[in-house]
């Protein structure tokens, strides 16, 4: 058990609050089954120099789904102090994005959980993407079964997801600079959403179709053939599971992400 010391950062003090799971260890994103990708800005970036471009952000799940960007002008920056004075990966809203393309789909069922800690730095183009999951056949990240886009739309609404050509829009975006834990999950019947531990309403019918995710794009999306819809964000942590992790793990996840000061 860590000792609480005066002057110790909040993020450290909060470590004592981390949930304990069966077996005695602290809850981590690897605790639920089905973790397919996990990125956190305080580990695995190709640089830790403030303001340096990032060419790779390593997957912490053990699946080696590293996010990369070979073109220097498109590389996001490592920022030493973002949400809760902790590191973040900043995309510029013009051309930056990170990408992982797999040979085969790594999410294929009817269920999925996505959790992301991030904030919008500035509004950019209409429908600018924070995250896109592309299906194996390519095309767009919307209106195609098996793909998903998390975006900032013309109506300043965040978190649109797509499955089987259904549109689901979440609540209004909280604004620039506001740190968010966005939690999206599909339970096999419906899409669900929570922001910063509060339930959010999604306008939608029940979800149908199956996931077919072969590609992760962070900071942009839209078309698999021509990545666009670039967003200006600070990304701190992203976790993707190939199932509905369930309410207990969701609660533990929200406690786990308290380290970002949410």
């Amino acid at each position: 058990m860590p000792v609480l010391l005066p002057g110790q950062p909040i993020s450290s003090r909060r470590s004592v609050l981390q949930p304990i799971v069966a077996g005695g260890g602290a809850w981590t994103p690897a605790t639920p089954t089905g973790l397919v990708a996990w990125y956190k800005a305080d580990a695995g970036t190709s640089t830790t120099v403030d303001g340096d471009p990032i060419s790779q952000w390593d997957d912490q799940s053990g699946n080696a789904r590293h996010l990369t960007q070979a073109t220097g002008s498109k590389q996001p920056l490592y920022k030493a102090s973002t949400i809760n004075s902790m590191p973040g990966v900043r995309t510029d809203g013009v051309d930056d994005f990170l990408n992982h393309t797999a040979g085969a789909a790594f999410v294929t069922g009817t269920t999925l959980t996505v959790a992301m800690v991030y904030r919008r730095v500035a509004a950019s183009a209409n429908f600018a993407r924070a995250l896109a999951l592309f299906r194996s056949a390519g095309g767009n990240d919307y209106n195609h079964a098996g793909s998903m886009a998390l975006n900032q739309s013309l109506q300043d609404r965040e978190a649109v997801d797509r499955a089987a050509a259904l549109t689901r829009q979440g609540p209004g975006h909280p604004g620039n600079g506001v740190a968010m834990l966005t939690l999206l999950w599909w339970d096999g019947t419906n899409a669900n959403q929570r922001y910063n531990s509060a339930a959010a309403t999604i306008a939608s019918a029940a979800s149908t179709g199956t996931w077919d995710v072969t590609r992760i794009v962070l900071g942009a999306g839209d078309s698999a053939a021509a990545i666009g819809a670039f967003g200006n964000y600070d990304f701190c942590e992203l976790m993707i599971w190939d199932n509905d992790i369930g309410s207990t793990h969701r609660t533990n996840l929200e406690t786990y992400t308290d380290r970002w000061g949410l």
Partner: protein
Amino acid sequence: MATAHTVRLIIVMRQGFAAKANTAAKLVDTVGGEFTFGPPLRLAGDATNTIRARWCSWQMTPAQATALRTRLKDQGLLDGEVVIVPRSQRGTWVFDGQARAAIFDARENEGWTPAEVLEATGLDTPHTNQ
């Protein structure tokens, strides 16, 4: 340790010179520079989405900035065809429609923002669906 990447430039390149600009960029960024001038721009609101320019926002070292300017010249981009827009002209500079390239000082917190560049040039990004 401080970053050596202290220069951020937003560069808008006419569509007709984009291929040569990417050739120049590849000589500066030998890993992936050929994709530098990729994101398209249209005349603001153009429903036909005709591509008029390509742009990039590049955080680079001063040496890279100098090298890029040299390589662009090597590809035929003459000094008189480029307009260098300092941060001091934020909000006042307006594109005259003549230059083949415009290079904006976009340093963090002080320089041109992407939205300001688009407004000053009369360009925007092609419509993205939803």
